[in-house]
Structures are given as C-alpha cells and as structure tokens.
C-alpha cells in the first residue's frame, strides 16, 4: 500500500479482551506461584498432559477436576528447537537483539511438550535430547511468564 496509503487505523478504539483461563488452568497457574509445575492424567490411556486439560481427545475421556493431578519435576528433555532473530509478536518490523532459541521441552513424567525460550545456551551447543530445567521468575505471579525459560542442567 506504499504510495496509495489512504487510511491507517491505529488503535482509536481500545477494546481489550480478558480471558478467564478456566478451572484447570487456574489450578495450573496457582502451582506456578510456588514454582511448581503440574499436569493431569487421562484415566484411560495414562497420558500426562502439560498444560492440564479437561478432555483427552484421543480417548474422548473427561479428566476430573478433583483428581488425576500429577506433580512434575522442574526438569525436562529438549525434543525440538528453532532459532529466530525476529520477535514473534512483530515479525514485520522488529528484530530481537540476539537470536532466540525457542525449544519444545517435554517435562519429565509428562507426554507432551511445551514451548519456551532456551536461556544461556550457545547456538552451537543446542542438541535435541539435552536435559534442561525451568528457570523461574524470582517472584512468580501465577501466569505463563513465570517460566522465564529453560537452562541446561
């Protein structure tokens, strides 16, 4: 829209949306406040989910809210990674100062992977299968940003 640019709409309406995370995620984030990570388990197939959820899609089984919780350690394995110079939230314009390594990490004792940054690890040393542990924010607030990222064990 280079020379033809006519109208640019930049935030003259502010309509923020607040999401209620639901009962399962509420419990999950409560445990973040104590720097602990928890998952929940399907009674049928035994799969442990992080983040926890109400339904195992494969078994079509409801996971009850009041039990099936599993306490998990702060450690995990790197299953996959990617490296990007861009800020994911604004690829068009802004580059991060340093390339970020973003990893898919399987928390020990769970069957799924979560996506976070890898911290203090040089690009040449990243290896699928490496052992990692969670780096928690000093004062967790009970939200996804409480996990700063993963560091090498």
């Amino acid at each position, binding site marked *: 829209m280079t020379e033809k640019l006519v109208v640019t709409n930049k935030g003259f309406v502010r309509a923020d949306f607040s999401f209620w995370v639901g009962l399962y995620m509420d419990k999950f984030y409560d445990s973040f406040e104590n720097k602990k990570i928890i998952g929940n388990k399907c009674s049928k197939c035994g799969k442990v989910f992080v983040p926890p959820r109400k339904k195992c899609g494969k078994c079509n089984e409801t996971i009850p809210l009041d039990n099936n919780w599993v306490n998990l350690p702060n450690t995990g394995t790197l299953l996959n990674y*990617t490296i990007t110079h861009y800020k994911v939230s604004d690829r068009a314009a802004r580059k991060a100062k340093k390339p970020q390594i973003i990893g898919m990490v399987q928390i020990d004792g769970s069957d799924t992977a979560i996506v976070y940054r890898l911290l203090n690890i040089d690009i040449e040393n990243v290896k699928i299968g490496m052992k990692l542990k969670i780096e928690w924010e000093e004062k967790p607030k009970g939200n996804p940003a409480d996990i700063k990222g993963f560091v090498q064990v």
Partner: protein
Amino acid sequence: MDKVGIVGFYQVKLYSDANYGRYEMIFEAVRGAIDSAGLKKKDITTAISCTNDYYDGRTISNCYTVEVGGGYMADESKVEMDGAHAVLYGLMRILSGNHKLSLVWGGSMASCFPYHAARLYETDPTWERPVAYVNDITAAGFQMRAYLEKYGVSIEDIAKIAVKNRKNASRNPLALQEAQNANITVKDVLDSEIYADPVTELMVAQPCDGVAALLLAPEKQALKITDNPVWITGVGYNQETYYLGDRDLTKSMSMELAGKMAFDAAGIKDPKKEIDLAEFFEAYAHEEVIFSEALGLVDMGEGTNLNSEIDGDIPINPSGGAIGGNPPCGTGLIRIIEAAKQLKGEADGYQVKDAKKAIASGQIGMCAQNNIVYILEGGN
C-alpha cells in the same frame, strides 16, 4: 458421492502490493468467473465467500462485500478458513439438491497488515499467546527440523522443493512476481534470510494480495453450461489437536485421513498410480514433502526423492503452488483452480501431459493442523 462440476473460474494476478482495493479485486474475480462460464449474475443461486475478519481489519467483513461478491439480495454465507473450505460449503449446497449454481470466492490483501504477527492471534490466549514464542513461522521451524531429524534428510533437499516451485511459478503468468524465479538455485534458497531456523525466507509461501473465484453446478446443469467441466469426485477433511507439543510433527495425520476419505469417495485404490498431478497449499517447502507422504504418493521418509517436476513421475505444484503466491483465504481455492486448468489442458506454459485425475488441497492452522483434499477429474 454425486459428482459436482466446476464450470467456471478466475484468479486475479497476485501482487505483493496491489494497485487496487480489495473490493475491486473481489469484483474482478467474481465477474471473471461468471464471464468464463458465459453466465449472468442472476444465474447464481448461492454465494459463499472466504475472508477473515482479522485479515480484513473489520468484524463480519463480508457485510461489505455484498455487491462485489455476488451477494446482493441473494443467498450468501461466509467461511472463515481457507478458500478450499469455502468450496466444501458451496459443494454441500449443490449436493443438498437446492441449488443450481454456487459461486465461491476467497482472498485478501496481506499487504495491509503484518500477516505473521497476526498469526500469533491463533495461539492459545490463556497459555502461549502472552509469552509469544509460537506463530506460524516458529511452528514451521519446529516441523521442518522434526522432519529432517527423523529421516536424516538435508536442508538442501527441502530447498530443492522451493527451487522447483519458484521455477514453476516463473511459467505461471498469474503467480506472484517475487516468486517467479526462473534462475534460482538451492544456494539462493539457503542463503536467503533465516526466518526460523532451518526455515529460510525463500522456503516460505509469501503472503500477498489476491482473490480467486469458481462456480460449481450439479452434473446435469454443469453439462448444460459447458462441454468441458472438471468434476469433483471426492473430498475429505480432517484436523488434529491444537497444541504443537501434543502432535507428531514429522507427519500429517490429518492429511492422511483427509486423503483416505477423499480417495474412498472417488474410488481411488492406488493414488501412486492413479493420480496424475497434485496442487498442494504448502505454506512452507517442507509441507509439500510431508503432504505427498501422507497421501501415499511416495513412501514415508522418501518425499524429497520423488520426481515432482512438471514432466516428472507425479508433478506437484506445476503452477508454483502456494510458494508461487499465498493470498490468505484464497490459496487453497487457487490450488483447485490450478488443478482444474491442468485437467482442461489450459495450463499454458506449465501443462502436465495427459492429466486426467488430480489432487488439490487446502489447509489452515499451525503446521497445517487442518487439511482438506479434493479429487478432481477431467474429460467427458
């Protein structure tokens, strides 16, 4: 299923920054499709559009496309996925027996908004979105690495797919000019900017401006309109779970199941032998490989060894595919149109010889979470 005829279509030239507005572009495509069939607006009994409120920058975005999109004082509805999904809606309306001619159009203008940043809005707002590590590009980086690791395939082998599609696009006059790279080399692809390692810029189907439209009619009606319709003889669709960490990214289970459903409907037993060409919506070069394997066009892990050139064993994306230009909401629809052109023998400059049966696919979601597959057959 009863076969449904494709009786007309039109695609506008794709631009990274088009010199006209989206409504003019929609009108060009819709009018073009109606003219190509020698029909009038009044012949359309139902119109289905595919746009996305976020990409259009307004809610209920089809309320502004009424006149140009064939919806004025008419039966009109919208799909907010890929254009190929809108075709399914149009197809169902024909198969319901209530409609004689259905118009389907889709597309948008990616030049108006930061497409990849917008894809962050697809992520879970209660978990992944606040920390912002996942969008379509980082997800693609994960998937490509997962595939390379599992089968010991090299980055060069994936880059070759991008080279093939960009060379094919150079023979397709409607492809995006930036993707028409007749003399591109594997080195050019590898040396292009890293988007999310190992995915580089030239492996990405660049979001652009464009709209396409097609017309569907039941068998009897189709034969009244044209002597040379292309038939949709099968369709299948499927999707997998949302979280990337729950999925096996080395393959596409949803594409495999969608393919089975479509092959069953069309009575195809051995796709390797029966399919003459495929037009995939490959948002990234490696997806083309994963899709070919999922659909059984080649054995698992062997996707990069398939000769998929225009004169190869099974030509894939002879038009250049989505890498030849990716107007959000229009790309899958364009795949169907391109496959139809091949079956009609109208793909000037990139025609596959003796093309009788083709696959066309559309997708939506991170790492193609949802896939839709069509079987198209030509000749009367």
